[in-house]
């Protein structure tokens, strides 16, 4: 049976985290490396197996063509959208991509899509949580930038499904952060959340009212973040190298990644130090060295961080508020550690921003709070409710290529609008509808969300049918459309052609490809893990039999052990995890004395009382562990 445990996930451009509500406060679940942040890096190892997170990072430099990062930038995007990105990011797109198609990326010898890569990251987080809880985790709340459009949200939801997670809610990142902050200070007032992350920028203004977190206005830029700062620094380094050393590494992925690593470290250090020295080893053995002062750095990034000013002003204007009417400002996202960014926020809102919570973790913590609310709440989240808005206006294309806005931006979601359509020709059975998202007047300047075909309109004279089309944006910010011809009462069939989205069939196919989606798979993995343990204990026993300690056991004891060993081998051939587990425990018990004797004769008394398994292998994890145990010498 599935449990009701719901985790909160921050699927970030640079790092991803999973958190849950432990009692009254949200906590981040660490990975098997003990670290809270899982870098959003996916690589394929030499065998074509995916490697995720910290262990994937080295592939960025060693085999850049087998690794991918910042995939969030490509979620829900089409070829036309990402031309700029491709100049700066080493994404390798499939050659046969057409316009309006979901992007396909080459990763080593495989071709994959952004949702599938995100799914690998999500699956790693899912595993981390499962190892932590010792049981399957199938439900999650995932955060997205507030300014994500419908296609980007849908792509994120698809990624969740592919990873075997039921995505109960997509929560906007700044709003999630406000929940984490609001937990300890339940107060009324107006707060602004300034969220500058690795790849996206959001500004949200909220009204807090007795536990209700009501977003009044939101704005942002889904292509603005720390990545842009890194790219500026990388470009300078590459130019330097070309100028001074006459070496062109712009197309050398290995060199670019080495430089990237160095400038990111430098950037981070510059938040603390007045200057840093870059020192990068280049292919061919030469070194690139350069000093960067904080002053130079600040000058360099000014144009990037200035791009956050417009959205902030627009959000205040939309909220009908002046800076002095905002009570508190909260900083979220790693890039808000940069002193220049803090100074800018202070100037914009005329007050010192809050930085009490770790800007890298606060979104995941907030997602855990929201997960708790969805799961039925607890004392800590009692009375808490999030009322979020749609960041972009929803429109439909009307005659002359003009956008007719039917749901305005900053409308509280769920929100709906109804439109009526009729036919132009006698007996016309179909009507085409083009749905758009954006603020511009002309359809061509807005984002195309989908083209719908209303079908099966009963034959009538032109202008007679009255087709009612209902557009509904749900609490995830995702659009649903339904239609009915009013005169006949007939439901019209809607055929959705998502722009840059995966079809349901495609997602289903990808779920089947993934071997990690259901309870069944969790059990299968448990069996595999138990078998690894069996191999370990049998190897240890073999070693024990060859040790002098074996001779000190009674014949009876030896017989018992042989019996248990046989039993273990028998259940090991079956698929029953519990039986294998029991047999392992039994053998462990039965070999306690052998272990003791071995230790007495060989090692220190400090290890006394350990069973065979532990004596030979060191302390094992208490919860199921997807990895083989570390070697122990």
């Amino acid at each position, binding site marked *: 049976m599935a449990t009701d445990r719901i985790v909160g996930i921050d699927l970030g451009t640079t790092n991803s985290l999973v958190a849950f509500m432990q009692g009254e406060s949200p906590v981040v679940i660490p990975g098997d490396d003990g670290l809270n942040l899982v870098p959003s890096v996916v690589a394929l190892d030499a065998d074509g197996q995916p490697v995720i997170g910290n262990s994937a990072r080295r592939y960025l430099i060693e085999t850049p063509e087998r690794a991918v990062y910042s995939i969030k930038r490509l979620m829900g995007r089409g070829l036309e959208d990402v031309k700029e990105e491709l100049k700066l990011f080493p994404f390798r797109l499939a050659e046969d991509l057409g316009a309006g198609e979901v992007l396909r990326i080459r990763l080593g010898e495989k071709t994959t899509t952004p949702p599938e890569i995100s799914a690998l990251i999500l699956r790693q987080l899912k595993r981390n949580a499962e190892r932590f809880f010792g049981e399957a985790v199938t439900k999650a709340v995932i955060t997205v930038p507030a300014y994500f459009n419908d296609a980007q949200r849908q792509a994120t939801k698809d990624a969740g499904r592919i990873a075997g997670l039921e995505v109960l*809610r997509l929560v906007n990142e700044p709003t999630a952060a406000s929940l984490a902050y609001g937990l300890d200070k339940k107060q009324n007032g107006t707060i602004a959340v300034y969220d500058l992350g690795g790849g996206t920028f959001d500004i949200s203004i909220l009204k807090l009212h*007795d536990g209700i977190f009501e977003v009044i206005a939101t704005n942002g830029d889904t292509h603005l973040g720390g990545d842009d700062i890194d790219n500026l620094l990388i470009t300078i380094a590459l130019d330097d190298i070309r100028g001074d050393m006459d070496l062109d590494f712009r197309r050398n992925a290995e060199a670019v990644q080495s430089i990237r690593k160095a400038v990111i470290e430098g950037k981070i250090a510059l938040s603390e130090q007045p200057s840093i020295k870059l020192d990068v080893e280049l292919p061919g053995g030469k070194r690139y060295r350069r000093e960067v002062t904080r002053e130079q750095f600040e000058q360099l990034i000014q144009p990037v961080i200035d791009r956050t000013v417009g959205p902030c002003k627009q959000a205040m204007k939309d909220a009908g508020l002046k800076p002095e009417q905002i009570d508190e400002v909260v900083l979220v996202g790693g890039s808000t550690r940069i002193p220049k960014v803090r100074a800018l926020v202070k100037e914009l809102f005329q007050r010192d921003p809050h930085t009490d919570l770790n800007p890298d973790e606060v979104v995941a913590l907030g997602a855990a709070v929201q997960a708790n*609310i969805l799961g039925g709440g607890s004392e800590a989240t009692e009375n808490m*409710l*999030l009322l979020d808005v749609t960041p972009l206006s929803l429109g439909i294309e009307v005659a002359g290529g003009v956008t007719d806005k039917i749901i305005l931006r900053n409308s*509280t979601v*769920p*929100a709906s609008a109804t439109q009526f359509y009729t036919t132009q020709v006698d007996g016309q059975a179909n009507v085409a509808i083009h749905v758009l998202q954006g603020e511009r007047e002309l359809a061509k300047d807005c984002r195309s969300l989908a083209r719908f075909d209303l079908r099966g309109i009963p034959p009538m004279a032109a202008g007679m049918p009255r087709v009612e089309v209902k557009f*509904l944006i749900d*609490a995830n910010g995702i659009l649903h459309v339904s239609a009915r011809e009013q005169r006949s009462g007939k439901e019209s069939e809607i055929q959705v052609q998502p722009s840059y989205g995966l079809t349901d069939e495609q997602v289903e196919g990808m779920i089947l490809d993934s071997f990690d989606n259901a309870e069944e798979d969790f059990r299968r993995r448990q069996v595999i893990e138990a078998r690894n343990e069996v191999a370990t204990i049998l190897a240890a026993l073999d070693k024990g039999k060859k040790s002098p300690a074996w001779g000190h056991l009674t014949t009876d004891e030896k017989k018992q052990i042989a019996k248990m060993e046989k039993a273990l081998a028998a259940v090991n051939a079956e698929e029953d995890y519990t039986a294998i587990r029991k047999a392992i425990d039994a053998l462990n018990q039965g070999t306690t004395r052998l272990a003791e004797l071995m230790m007495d004769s060989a090692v220190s008394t400090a290890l006394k009382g350990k069973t065979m398994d532990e004596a030979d292998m060191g302390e094992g994890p208490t919860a199921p562990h997807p990895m083989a145990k570390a070697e122990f010498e």
Partner: protein
Amino acid sequence: MPVDYFTFFGLPRKLNVDVAALERDFYELSRKLHPDLNARAASKEQEWVLEQSSLLNDAYRTLKDPIKRTQYLLLLEGVELEEQSKTATDQARATGETKKQIVPPDLLEEVFELNMQLEEVHMQKKMGEDDPALIEEIGKQKLELEGKQESLFRELQGYWNVWDGMIQREQNGQPVSEEERRQERDKMVDVLNRRNYIRNLVRDVSEALEN
């Protein structure tokens, strides 16, 4: 036809609305109807919740805003505001005017002048020139227009009171003639059209001044 927004909040079809009380009701109903608080319900129930909470949000968004509220009431009263503006557009076209909406006669001269000035600012921007005197003049006109918008809103509120009185009479069992209803309706449509026109003008001017 699903339940209308006034009925949803248990309000009579009056135009003076206690917005603070409306907000309280909105929060209270949100605590019952929001999908987040019903995430564990059966899927049929969740569908209903989604429907109801979108209705709640749509209703609150419409009723809390005085102009949207008035437009919505007129819609319920059978006025097709879009038809209205379509007619206006056709009329404007027939008279050779390119504006979407018909210019209120008392503004005709002023608007003509203002459009010329905006055009000039636009040209100057293109040429990289700057005429502070002109900008100042347009700024003054903007203030004037905003004043007009204000006074039109007060005029509208006057009609609200007449309308609400009429509804009250109806509630008290006194009949209201269709003719009277239509007259009050038309007054509001007229003032809304004029106000919309000025609002668009203010927006154009603001854009010209900002860019």
